[in-house]
């Protein structure tokens, strides 16, 4: 996880897994989810429910004919628990998003709008739900924006904390890249004319609510494939168990429905079957907690598969402003002289470049703060391309090299060769040289350059070890781009990039079978965002960009793409790990149940009872209990996701195979044995 600043409201969204406010209502909805029409979506748990119902019938029959019903009763109870634990897992996952959805719903309710008539300035007040696409509304200071739309007139500061959790207001204005507004946000100053662009019920907030509640959740492609595998396994074990009845009959054992049901339910992959939808919901929820809204689960999965990241240079890789990194004195000038002069020339310069010169002089060159008052401040002007100060008779100037040379009266033939060499070197490396002079004395050159954010290189290194290429996109010329690219450690760059270049690059990569992620905010990014497999739009971006993307970052932080990829990977890893665990569990269950079923007929099979379980009945009951409890035990893991480390696939596989594969093989032997000890100690059978 990154150390990026997280808004306060977002923190409130994060709640512990064992929060009673979530667990208590989840119990109720776990029962509601027993409805077979709902459970049909989950074949493994649906089969478990049918089997539980069947065993319950046999339990009732046992009661009615006054047979010993304790065993079938307990098996039936634990089979129901298995189903309930699965529905409970889903309910908990959904519950975690519900609180947030509720607060969003409040922001949306009771909104009214002042709709402008087709002509003139007359307005009528209508309910926000009556607004249609194309309606134009007027919103003034203190009012809530009634729906998603685009500013067509005016400029205003808007509080979007209801959606983003960020309390600092943002500017929204007509035209340009900051024209999109979201329903439910508040205008703090001025007035806006807004054209509504979404129908009620399908607005951004509505989508967010639906997403968080998991109500409109559709299975993702990978989830569908996994469901097919799990259904297939269920069928295979159904065949194995049903035919076992016949084979047992031949061998002289009549197997009861109860024990066959127990065998079936322990063998079918109930663990992953029960947790599958919880994992999916929790994955989306993790994204929401990270202040990213995805339009579909498919996009989250695709994020895990991404091969190439297209990253904008400005703001993502570099700070976005050129900064002074070095003072290079002219011949016969000391470091201190040029640093002091540069500092003086920039004292009144409030541009980021000016501030960075001051910081460099005071920091690295240890020039103490000069307590002087300049006689005159010469601000930067386009014609002179100079700025500086007049101070105690000194006329200190900094600016473009040719402008400073002209100011100092140095002709082309008198330029010191060392100075010229420094200037050329800076220009070649993609930086900007600024000359400094004191009257006619040339002091040297300031090296201004794009500074790569600290830590970004390591981040890209991690990406590379995960097999993800990073591509920098910049409007700079190829020389500058290449310098920054090598400094930041990206794998490739697109220099002098126009929006259509991005689109072409994405298409080319996709041709080669790669999946691409990018982020963008402008309208001209929209085609590329739509073409990319994962397109992340900034919340501050235009409506067109937000529509084209399949994710929206509420924090509008371009580095978020990296976290999104990690969340996608974590989602897939959690699914895979629990599937492997679930399947590996079967080995132990066979060793618990098979000897128990047949030891009466074939005493020699007692040799298979390697766990030395107390009695056949306790063995069967213990396997069923373990099978149910493991679902509950794994709910936290399903919700939190398995831990992700940015190491290569081979290392990840080795670790997860060891933990979930080998662990899944070994753990149930110990678990079933422990449950069996408890079952026998409590004389349950």
């Amino acid at each position, binding site marked *: 996880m990154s150390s990026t600043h997280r808004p306060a409201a977002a923190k409130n969204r994060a709640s512990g897994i064992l929060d009673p406010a979530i667990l208590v209502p989840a119990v109720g909805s776990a029962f509601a989810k027993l409805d077979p029409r709902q459970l049909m979506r989950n074949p493994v748990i649906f089969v478990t429910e049918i089997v539980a119902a069947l065993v319950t019938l046999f339990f009732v029959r046992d009661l009615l004919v006054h047979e010993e019903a304790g065993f079938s009763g307990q098996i039936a109870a634990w089979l129901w628990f298995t189903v309930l634990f699965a529905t409970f897992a889903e309910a908990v996952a959904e519950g975690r998003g519900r609180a947030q959805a509720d607060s969003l719903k409040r922001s949306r309710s009771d909104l009214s709008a002042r709709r402008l008539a087709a002509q003139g300035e007359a307005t009528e007040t209508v309910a926000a739900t009556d607004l249609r696409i194309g309606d134009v509304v007027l919103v003034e200071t203190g009012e809530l924006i009634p729906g998603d739309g685009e500013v067509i007139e005016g400029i205003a500061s808007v509080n979007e904390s209801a959606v983003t959790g960020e309390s600092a207001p943002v500017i929204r204005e007509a035209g340009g890249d900051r024209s999109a507004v979201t329903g439910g946000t508040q205008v703090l100053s001025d007035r806006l004319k807004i054209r509504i662009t979404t129908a009620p019920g399908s607005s951004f907030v509505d989508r967010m609510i639906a997403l968080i509640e998991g109500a409109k959740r559709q299975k993702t492609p990978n989830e569908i494939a996994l469901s097919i595998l799990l259904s297939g396994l269920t069928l295979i074990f159904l065949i194995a168990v049903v035919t076992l009845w016949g084979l047992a009959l031949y061998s002289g054992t009549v197997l009861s429905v109860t024990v066959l049901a127990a065998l079936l339910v322990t063998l079918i992959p109930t663990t992953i079957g029960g947790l599958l939808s919880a994992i999916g919901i929790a994955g989306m929820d993790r994204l929401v907690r990270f202040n990213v809204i995805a339009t579909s689960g498919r996009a989250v999965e695709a994020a895990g598969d991404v091969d190439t990241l297209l990253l904008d240079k400005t703001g993502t890789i570099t700070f976005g402003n050129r900064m002074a990194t070095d003072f290079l004195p002219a011949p016969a000038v000391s470091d201190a002289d040029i640093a002091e002069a540069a500092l003086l020339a920039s004292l009144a310069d409030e541009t980021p470049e000016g501030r960075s010169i001051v910081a460099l002089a005071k920091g690295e060159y240890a020039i103490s703060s000069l307590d002087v008052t300049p006689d005159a401040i010469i601000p930067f002007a386009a014609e002179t391309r100079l700025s500086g100060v007049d101070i105690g008779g000194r006329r200190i100037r900094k600016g473009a090299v040719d402008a400073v040379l002209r100011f100092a009266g140095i002709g082309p033939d008198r330029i010191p060769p060392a100075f010229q060499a420094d200037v050329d070197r800076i220009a070649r490396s993609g930086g900007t040289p600024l000359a400094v002079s004191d009257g006619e004395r040339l002091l040297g050159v300031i090296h201004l350059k794009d500074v790569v954010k600290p830590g970004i290189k390591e981040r890209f290194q991690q990406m590379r070890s995960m*097999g993800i290429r990073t591509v920098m996109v910049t409007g700079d010329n190829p020389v500058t781009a290449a310098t920054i690219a090598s400094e930041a450690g990206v794998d490739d760059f697109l220099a002098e990039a126009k929006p259509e270049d991005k689109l072409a690059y994405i298409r080319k990569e996709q041709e080669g079978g790669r999946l691409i992620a990018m982020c963008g905010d402008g309208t001209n990014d929209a085609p590329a965002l739509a073409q990319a497999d994962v397109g992340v739009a900034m919340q501050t971006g235009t409506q067109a960009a937000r529509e084209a993307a399949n994710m929206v970052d509420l924090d509008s932080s371009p580095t978020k793409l990296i976290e999104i990829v990690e969340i996608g990977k974590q989602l897939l890893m959690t699914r895979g790990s629990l599937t492997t665990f679930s399947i*590996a569990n079967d*080995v132990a269950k066979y060793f618990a149940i098979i000897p128990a079923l047949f030891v009466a007929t074939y005493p020699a099979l007692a040799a298979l009872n390697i766990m030395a379980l107390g009695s056949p009945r306790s063995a069967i009951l213990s396997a069923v209990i373990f099978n149910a409890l493991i679902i509950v035990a794994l709910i936290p893991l399903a919700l939190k996701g398995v831990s992700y480390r940015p190491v*290569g696939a081979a290392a990840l*596989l080795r670790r997860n195979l060891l933990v979930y*594969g080998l662990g899944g093989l070994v753990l149930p032997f110990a678990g079933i044995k422990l449950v069996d000890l408890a079952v026998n100690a409590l004389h349950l059978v």
Partner: protein
Amino acid sequence: MSFVGWLQIAALFLAVLAVIKPLGLYMARVFQGERTFISPVLAPVERGFYRLAGVDDQREQGWLAYAFAMLAFSIAGFVSLYAILRLQAFLPFNPQGFTGVAPDLAFNTAISFLTNTNWQNYAGETTMSQFSQMAGLTVHNFLSAASGIAMAMALTRAFARSKAKTLGNFWVDLTRATLYVLLPLAIVVTVVFIAMGLPQTLGASITATTLEGAHQVIALGPVASQEAIKQLGTNGGGFFNVNAAHPFENPTALSNLLNIFAMLSVSAALVYTFGQMVGERRQGWAFLATIAILLIVGVGVVYWAEAQGNPILTALGLDASGGNMEGKEVRFGQSASALYAAVTTGLSDGGVNAMHGSLTGLGGLVPMFLIQLGEVLPGGVGSGLYGLIVFAILAVFVAGLMVGRTPELLGKKIDGREMKFAMLAVLILPLAILGFTAVSVMIPAGVASIGTPGPHGLSEILYAYSSAAGNNGSAFGGLSGNTPWYNATLAIAMLLGRFAYVIPVLAIAGSIAAKVRAPASSGTFPTHGPLFVGLLIGVILILGGLQFFPALALGPIVEHFATLAGQTY
């Protein structure tokens, strides 16, 4: 167990290892349509065939067209073989004057040879005319193997290609597999077999007068030629009833090794061909390592179990150092018998040189289990390769998610469509094996054929359906299979095991071929290397074998523990 015994086993595996690469490369050239050293001789013949059949060898087929061609060819093959068997009394080369084969037996036998199973509910020397053996059965020994290779090549191309609509041409693959691979190899092996003393004649059986003055009929025939393709094509159908235990089919320890070598080499080399054709030789070696580990463990367990002998007989005072020799030929002993048993079942060959029913409980469990794993070690020629790839697809799907990406095999993403067909394919074995076994043990028509009651009887039936559905063809022995019930149901199991398996596989091929082949990166699930080999072994054992555990527990497993406890049934 002895040093010499292990040496024999090691020698065989080394010999096969030596031949894998050259043979694999040769086959890759053949199926990529490149010229080979033998092309000057065979290319005109090949073109002649295409001209005769009106096949355009340049025109490739999509998966459906490929599957239809294969099915049409199989149906034609079935009809002609059935007709030959039924009408053999009216056909030439029938010196013994055998009558036509009974309808149910002919049906079973035709299906059996069509599906590369070679389950034999008949005794060859007393049922089949020379014509039936040569023009009927031996022809299908070639064709069923060639069609298996063809389908494996279709799947291989699916992985090798990117965004492709076609998988190759079935008729071309079939012709090339027969003409360039099986026929030349069969000729070489036949000649070596003749040199080793196997009969090769069109003459009738001879009658010998024994020392006691009794008359004994000694059956002869074109044994060497049938034996060669029986092994090369992993068919397994012997000329004689007792198969490779018969001194005319397998006279010496050396011929025994050549038998095993012949059956193993083509199938194993095809795995290398796969790696070569998809441009990832390491993948081929990873598959071969998986196969080798499981197979060597299988051989080791059988050898160990048989060398231990029978504890009940030991308790009666029998010398245990001789091991269990029941049902074995003295010229082979435990080592060569164990090797043959494990390889023939890992391979879907089905020839036998010992009675599997007479193996110890544990020794009998292994061959049965190897068949139930889906005949992928390395399985029948072609069929083993595509079966193994289905397991590899399942393995990358189950565990591939653990690296945080949509699972891929060789750059092809595995999603719902592949999963659906892979599950359809792997469902077939439990359905056919467990389904028919459960019904058979409950109905009189099924139970009546059992040779030994108790758990061993269950093993006999379980083995029969495993062998049929796995298209193996070996028998446990003891079961009287030539009854209407078994002739019919075993034939259905064979059909399911071949066609209900391969059609989903071809569908997978179609869907895989159409996908873009993504380049590998360090974020891709690595499908070579020891980790993947271990994973694949785990998946084969757990997904392929675990569902048979309850059934096995009631058969060979209980037998094993009961024998240890000194109990008999």
